[in-house]
């Protein structure tokens, strides 16, 4: 599975969320087929709530991991 990474640290609210949503929607087909996994690198605490909430509502699997000084939100194909 390919992994596409987006570094969107430092951006204003709600740009982080809008960028993530746009990229998820642009790759909806290959995401659902399981060909790709998207990783959003963010430092916006609010987006650790809004991105997983929306991606999850759209039926994707989402994980949030705190790394050194940033968060990594991974969005992949459908949940079980």
């Amino acid at each position, binding site marked *: 599975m390919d992994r596409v990474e987006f570094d969107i640290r430092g951006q*204003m*609210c*709600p740009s982080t969320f809008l960028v993530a949503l746009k990229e998820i929607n642009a790759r909806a087909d290959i995401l659902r087929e399981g060909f790709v996994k998207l990783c959003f690198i963010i430092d916006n*605490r609010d987006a650790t*709530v*809004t991105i997983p909430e929306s991606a999850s509502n759209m039926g994707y699997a989402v994980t949030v991991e705190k790394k050194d*000084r940033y968060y990594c939100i991974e969005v992949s194909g459908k949940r079980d």
Partner: protein
Amino acid sequence: MSLFVHPYFLIGIISLLLGLAAGFVMHRSDFCIAGMYRDLFLFRRTVMIKSFMLLVVSSIVLFEAARRAGLLSVYPFPLLYPPTAANPIGGFLFGVGMVLAGGCVVGTLYKMGAGSVLSLTAFAGLICGSGLYADIHPAWIVFVRKTTFFPGKITIAQILGVDPVIPVLAVAVPGALLLFFWHKRGALIRPAFAAGYLQPYKAALALSLIGTISYILIGMPMGVTTSFTKIAGFIESALFPSHYDSLAFYKTMPLNYVNALTGAVLTGGPGPNYDALAAIQIPLITGIIAGSALSAALLKELNIHHRVPFRQYVLAACGGTIMGLASRLAPTCNVWHLLGGLPILSASSILFLLGMLPGAWLGGLLLVKVLAKQGVRST
């Protein structure tokens, strides 16, 4: 008089401590008032706005309890005025500005404390906007006087000629019932993944307590924007001294009250002097920035990233400038009106809120339009 018994020293220390607590709490819960209103209109998200309602309702109850206990020496607090058409106009512009800037006046401060370069840009805009007002002040003050609805009356209770407890109960009781209903349904809880996250309803309760302590000890709830004007005045006086001398606004001294804690008469205005307003607000501003920085540092989230799309810098600068100007036109900002004036049911604060709502809606539309055109690089 010794430095340590000077009233400015005592109120400065209190403001600094309150600011530290507020900045810490705001960072932990990302208590962004601009975001609450923006997301309500853009994404129909309501959890944060419910927490904001909790903040207002709990402040209504705490302020009234403090008043009835005789703890509020000045009621209504200083720098609140009778309602005018300036309130909704200023509120509307403020709503647009805060959404474009990515944070209101205190949102900008706590985000700046956590290392946001965009918020630093918005802060510079706030200073510019505050300074711009000085040039239009003579004309605007005439407009304010001509459109004052109830001269000499500030709160709804004063306008109706009743005891403040009556309108306070009329708002607080249904508000508390609604909040209790949301609480029972779990509608005040946000699923969170951020480290050290403080649920917004807890932040709301903490901020209402901080505001009440400020009102009791300082004589006013939290406020920051006059200091932005002071900074603008200082810069203007250094760069354009003759123009600065011609501006009447910087010579006004609207603050004049007796601080019950120290017994001192506190006076101050927007001019770049170290007066009571500076003694109260500058430590508060410093505290909010430092409290947020401390919270971010403890979580290892103190980051400075300047490589963001240029259009976001433009948005932050424009939003900050509009917000700075609006906070003088209104007059004063969302924190003063919504966390201070609204809890005592000040008519001007209610009008400010009514103007701010469509402003935040329009700001959200503009923001999305501008952000939609930016690109993002992937690896």
